[in-house]
């Protein structure tokens, strides 16, 4: 049996296992979560009403947006600085920059958060050193607050911010930069008026990826925030496991997905998926 019919059957047979797996193990339970958000504890829109009126939920949403915005600015700026050297540096500089980007990228989020605890806690490296030099007499509070969360999240997200920037910088025509320099423009001026504007799509992609990732971040804020700087993801966890309020946890999840979906739609209007890797 040859021809279009057997082709369609072959495709269906090969593609079916994964599609079935994800329908049963992902799509169906997601609909279950959506159902929770409308039915627990009582049927109706009560949970969504609570989202709009509850002071605690509101303050967590605002804090999450604020932290995500700060982390985005910090990560994209830092990523830009190291990507310039990774893409345009001498061969040795490139290898070193790649090492500094890829090693943290492959190390687990827990190890990295733990490294920051070891550095920033009251008896950590930084406080021990500052005290032994006599700079300070009391340890500085660097962790279990928003500062620690921002530092840890930026550290996690810099490698992710690097990839769209690198792809934008690689596709940039070097002759344009040399022309600007040849016409007498200074290094600084060439960078700000030629290089940066020409990598705009990379900056937008990098910022949106970082922002979207920050919104749903769980592990780093939970460890470095020490329960004092709760973000949306940790609030969902607390609603489901501590207060048990599954309905509210589910409703926050649904809102988060819708919000992230809208941001992604925005992302793909400005950047082609190919430019992100």
């Amino acid at each position, binding site marked *: 049996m040859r021809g279009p019919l057997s082709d369609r059957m072959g495709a269906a047979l090969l593609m079916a*296992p994964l599609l079935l797996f994800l329908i049963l*193990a992902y799509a169906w339970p997601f609909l279950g979560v959506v159902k929770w958000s409308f039915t627990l504890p009582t049927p109706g829109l009560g949970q969504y009403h609570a989202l709009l009126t509850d002071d605690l939920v509101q303050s967590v949403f605002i804090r999450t947006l604020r932290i995500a915005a700060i982390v985005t600015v910090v990560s994209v700026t830092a990523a830009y600085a190291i990507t310039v050297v990774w893409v345009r540096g001498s061969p040795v500089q490139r290898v070193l920059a790649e090492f500094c980007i890829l090693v943290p990228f492959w190390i687990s989020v827990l*190890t990295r958060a733990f*490294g920051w605890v070891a550095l920033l806690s009251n008896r950590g490296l930084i406080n021990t050193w500052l005290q032994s030099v006599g700079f300070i007499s009391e340890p500085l509070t660097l962790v279990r607050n928003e500062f620690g969360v921002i530092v840890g999240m930026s550290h996690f997200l810099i490698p992710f911010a690097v990839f769209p920037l690198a792809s934008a910088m690689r596709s940039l025509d070097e002759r344009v930069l040399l022309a600007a320099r040849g016409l007498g423009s200074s290094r600084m001026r060439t960078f700000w008026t030629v290089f940066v504007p020409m990598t705009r799509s990379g900056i937008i992609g990098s910022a949106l990826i970082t922002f979207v990732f920050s919104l749903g971040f769980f592990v780093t804020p939970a460890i470095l925030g020490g329960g004092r700087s709760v973000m949306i993801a940790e609030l969902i*966890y607390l609603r489901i496991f501590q207060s048990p309020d599954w309905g509210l946890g589910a409703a926050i999840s649904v809102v988060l997905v819708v919000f992230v979906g809208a941001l992604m739609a925005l992302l793909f209007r400005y950047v082609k998926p190919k430019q992100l890797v």
Partner: protein
Amino acid sequence: MPTYRPGPVSLLLAVLVALFLLMPLLAVIPVSLTPSRMLTMPTGELSLRHYRSLIEDPRWLDSILLSLRIGIVSSILSTVLALTFSLGVWMFQPRFTAALVGFVLLPMVVPPVVSAVTLYFLLTSVSGVTSFFGYDTWLGVAMAHSVMTVPFATVLILVSLSQLDRRIDLAARGLGASVWERATRVIMPNIKFGIVTAALLSFVLSWEEIGVTLFITSVNAITLPRLMWMGLRDNIDPAIAALSVILIIITVLVLAVRSVITRQRGAR
């Protein structure tokens, strides 16, 4: 030919960022050598007791074995599912391919915490039916990890398929090869590297998965990251520092080997 190189200011800024990126990884080394039972900097003498406790404390060993088992099972499952799906897409180019691939990539795009709530819903619903497979069982965790890693495996295999010359498949087809023969004897040998990479990445992602695991385990299925999490949240155990140092060394070694291999492939 002149080239456009970063100037001194760019280099200085890049060095600062590089230091920021490496600092927390270096900081765990002195902490892991402290003789104290608390998380402190060693003052004077050094000790390897926290490295010893990784081997001697059965909790660490048990969780390492559990994470290995879950990683291997979930990696096999997601690689097989990703491979059959990608072969279907590449060989038959069905209609709605973009939508189907988009659907498969969802667990990669949706915020992990939402996937975690979703898988929590799934496994608690299944738990009512069987105790062998569901909330807080190792099989349940392995399956949940497969959901999370299968998009990554699919992307890797689709990428290596896209670099394959379609004409070799057309030739096999013209010579009368069946779908099975084309897949196993023509296409798969040519994307070996991609399949192995997909399996390895799935394993690594499962090995270090924590966001979803936290939602779907409580006391029985304590994976290594889950145990680290417990040690980090309550009383910080310096054994975590020792474990972190070992994990960092493994990562650096693997990356070094990989860069040597890629350079050799490039040189040929």
